[in-house]
């Protein structure tokens, strides 16, 4: 699994500890995560900013966003 995907998965597991059974792929959307909501978006934003040392816009982290889109965004140069 891509390193960035692993990091994102760990972030999601930190927010939703009982997530271990959910398979996270590039096509997984945030809405696929059970109980995904705007509060989770704020927590994931904080986590990703720490993990990737990059400003993450809130509008990136909505239900329809795929893991691939997050990976692409964090992979872009600042």
């Amino acid at each position, binding site marked *: 699994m891509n390193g960035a995907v692993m990091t994102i998965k760990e972030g999601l*597991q*930190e*927010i939703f*500890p*009982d997530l*271990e059974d959910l398979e996270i792929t590039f096509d997984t959307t945030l809405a696929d995560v059970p*109980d995904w*909501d*705007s*509060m*989770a978006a*704020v*927590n994931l*934003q*904080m986590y990703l900013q720490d993990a990737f040392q990059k400003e993450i*816009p809130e*509008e*990136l982290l*909505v*239900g*329809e*966003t795929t893991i691939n889109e997050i990976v692409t965004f964090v992979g872009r140069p600042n």
Partner: protein
Amino acid sequence: MAAYFARLSESWGHFWQQVAVSPSSPLAPEPDLIKSQQLVIKQLADEQLTDEEKKRLVDLTNQNAKTARNYHKLFIAWLHKTLVTDASKNSAVHQQHLFWLAQIANALAPENFFWTNPMVMRRFIQSKGASLLNGYTQWFEDYRTGADTVRMTDQEAFKVGHNIATTPGRVVYRNALMELIQYEPSTAVTHRLPVVLIQPWINKYYIFDLNETKSLVRFLRDSGFTVFITSWKNPDSGMHHIGFDDYLKMGALQAVKVAQTICNVARVHAAGYCIGGTLLAGLLAWLNGNGGSGNTSPVAHASLFSTMVDYSEPGELGVYINEATLRYVEEMMHIDGYLDGRYIALAFRLLRSNSLIWRNYVHAYLMGNKAPRSEVLYWNSDSTRLPEKMCRFYLREFYFNNKLAQTDALTLAGRPIALNRIKQPLYAVGALQDHICPWPATFKIRRHAKGPVRYVLTTEGHITGFVNPPSERSKMKYWVNGRRSKATPQNWLTQQTARKGSWWQDWREWLSKKCGPKIAPPPMGHQRYPAQEPAPGVYVLEP
């Protein structure tokens, strides 16, 4: 009653039977919990764990978590079975049972405990125990500063008027209940009719002016509108006698009058959010109820954001609306003269206790993370009190008796109110995941008002659906239709095509057609209403 206890006893026996036959029963002679405790104690005693011990600790915690989840599921299923009977289904009491059952289930979730949350344990090992110490420090700080529940956001990160609520403007009117702020124009010309924003008074006004990119006020101003906004006084005991009528006359109506005078116009556009929208709907009907029609009202057209006028299906807040709870709230308010903002905040957080209480609890106290820095959460935590008289009236007559939806059943400021007297064009917005004002409830304005209603449904919730700035990256969507029909909300939705982007742009287009030609902006204030303190004013800073 005897039958109930018999059933209770039988199901409790059944529950334990399942526990006992479980392969990972806690009745086992050497529970994994003890082994993991020994390793944690070793780590806390500053003895370095070997890599093998660390792995063992994580494995044990995973095992404990799995076992705990199984028992949690069994216990909650037992509780559910015990509480829910065929006879109780679909009753209001049943909804209350389910609500409190969810509170128990969420509170007892294994993730909320150190020994059964693998992520917490992993953080503990990585930080060599510092995460738990940080968590304790944060808990103690919350306790010391009197927080009722774990903080949702970094309270030190924002200061109103400095890095939040910063759009330039001036207070142009103040009475005992409200300040009215007029924003400085940023364009050479502005539409003739101003936009008057009637804000809710359950939180502070600045949800529509968070920062430079997340500001409806700034969006309107930069689109060539003159913008006014209400900032309400945070009431104290001395304001216990302030009623909904006062909010109507001293607040919304006065705001409209001041804007009329400053802009030298006969009519304005008014927009209300949440309870501010309910007040505005009441004002529209009130103004038209004095023998007036939509054509002579000082409000030419209006927008209602996340606004309920019909409380027959109030959504999840309905669990609090019953005689016993209302009496309790009323007795509590009678002591202080107001409903404390802390109780209101807690009531809202309980509606989403997993995401608004327990997840924060785990992050802050068990993992030792700092609370997130978020303008929206900061605003959300900046709750206000509600005056006793107004709150009693609102809960009883709107939520409990649903009088606003009934023709002439509710009297506001001496006039019976009928929503079917609203003839002005309306722009109404609901949000798909709004659990405070569910969109099907906000949809009902189409049936009650007699003028044209352009109804918009946006993605996201009660706050994020409305703090919705257009952006290239935005994945927001909305559905819109202004045609009259008798469609149910769900049928209406299936008939619409989703549009990408923010409804703010659609609203701007609608407003631009209605607010007249662009002319030189009005002055800041007027000789009757001179410009006073700079925005955000004084009331918003009061604790």
